[in-house]
């Protein structure tokens, strides 16, 4: 499960994420982080589901962190895609790659919706909803 954690000014300096990792023992993976003294946004991948996932998300909420779940990241128009590959190497999380038959594969779990592929696609086949 990928979620965006939004830290407000009042909690940005607390070690919330590491505390939750220590508490639950779940190795939360940071995919992207933008933090300064005023606020922070961290995109993480949480390798958990069901109750365990809910527990972790609640721990963040209780600590004052706003949790945004990624429901949909990219929309690829497969009719338009020419499988050129222009989106692949710019992708910072390797969420796009070629299959054996040189068609494009999108691995949604890895996507952090940064949008660099949207700009990179020459035939405008990628959109962010």
């Amino acid at each position, binding site marked *: 499960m990928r979620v965006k954690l939004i830290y407000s000014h009042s909690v940005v300096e607390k070690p919330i994420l590491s505390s939750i990792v220590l508490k639950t023992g779940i190795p939360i993976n940071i995919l992207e982080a933008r933090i300064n003294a005023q606020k922070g946004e961290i995109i993480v991948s949480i390798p958990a589901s069901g109750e365990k996932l809910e527990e972790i998300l609640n721990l963040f909420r209780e600590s004052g962190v706003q949790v945004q779940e990624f429901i949909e990241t990219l929309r690829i128009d497969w009719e338009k895609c020419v499988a*050129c*590959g222009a989106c692949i*190497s710019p992708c910072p999380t390797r969420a796009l*790659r070629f299959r054996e038959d040189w068609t494009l594969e999108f691995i949604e779990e890895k996507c952090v919706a940064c949008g660099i592929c949207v700009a*990179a696609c020459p035939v405008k086949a990628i959109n962010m909803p």
Partner: protein
Amino acid sequence: MSEKDEEIRSIDEINEKIKRGDAVVLTAEEMINLVESSGLEVAAKEVDVVTSGTFGAMCSSGVFLNFGHSDPPIKMTRCWLNDVPVYKGLAAVDGYLGAASISETKGFEYGGGHVIEDLVSGREIDLRAESYGTDCYPRRHIETVITIDDLNQATLVNPRNCYQKYDAAANSSDRVLYTYMGTLLPNYGNITFSGAGQLNPLCKDPNYETIGFGTKIFLGGGIGYIIGEGTQHNPTSGFGTLMVKGDLKQMNSRYLRGASFHRYGTTLYVGIGIPIPIINMRVAGTAALKDDEIYVDIRDYGAAVRPDLRPVIKRVSYAELRSGKVTIGDRDIPSSSLSSYKMAREIAETLKKWILEGTFFLTRPIEPLPKHGKPKPLKVKGRELRAGDIMSRNVITAKPSDDIKEVALKLVEKGIDHLPVVDEEGKLAGIVTSWDLARAIAQDKRRLEEIMTRRVIVAFENESIDVVVRRMAQHNISGVPVVDRMNNVIGILTTDDISRKIVGGRTAL
């Protein structure tokens, strides 16, 4: 005459076999496999034709159009299709629409390449034209809607297509570059490349023994012909190109796709497939060349210099590029293509099918392509305006330990907005602007070193003024210190200097 020159079969013999339905046709990939399993001798004896293919962005593409005459008639001097300018330096209702021509209303989102795709798809296109009116062509303005069926001719004529191979791209600079080679991440974050390598037509006959003037080809899903070498044809370095033409009305939008490269411009993805008749052992050998035998350089697009002067980072094979990562030093850098290998393969397959079905026959070139020569750079007459010509040499600087209020006073006294900060040895350590100082005073800061920008955007004395102006615009700044190679500040260049000293174009210095 060496053994390799000895003719195995003639093009006429191959066409006879195609007619009889017993020609042996393989795609380039199949040829590679056959040579690996059975050896070159067997493959050369068995195979009559190898088909190649490529599908990539080819900016030097376009279409000659004849609109037909209206009543009253017009001598179109300016013309737009879906707001994309058409070249009108031709007769009254002839025009040329280039793939890189950009919409005057939609910018980089839509251009000539897209109009060509829309035409081929049978979509309606807005035609607008203007004229000064003549005795024989009195009309001065026309606005109408056309489709490809309304045109008398729509002839694709592409001055430079089908590069034999193309150097790959990376970016050493510290910011993302948006180029015709796609998105290049900073600090060598990725590598992009173009071309189908082992499927690429000219790579399969790099000595141009079978590909030449008049060769019949697969072009955009229809039939096309090679009408000569392409512009910038560079056989000496192994970068041959082709000029091709074909009837757009017979083509298919699956193989002609309008495209835009972010912050660069528009282009056209063109599908080209060329049959390689296996006439001798040498051609059999080149037709079986593999990705790991075809090499290009990776060039640094971080340097704003002439394309052939871009520094070479590494020489690399298409096999390594296509593997998805290239090792440079101790780093594995992600690599990906801009042209479609999947479509290249589909084109080679389609051409093979046409030949096997007996609907596509081979042609003997009427003239060979030039085998020697390389393009020249453009000479710039007069001296290029450089940073050193415009900069102020009388630079006022400050030290990191200076008091902010004193520095602010200095700025007001001298009437300047940019102040380079130098260390004790005179080397550039930072910069502050009047805006930085205003904010610092408001925040009650004391020393310059607390507030100065340490990552300074600089210029060098011999850099072209256009390059420096673009850098300033990209970083949204209005001044740069000019430094020497030892990082000593030797001048300062501001937008004020530029607007004051370049008055009325480039004349007054």
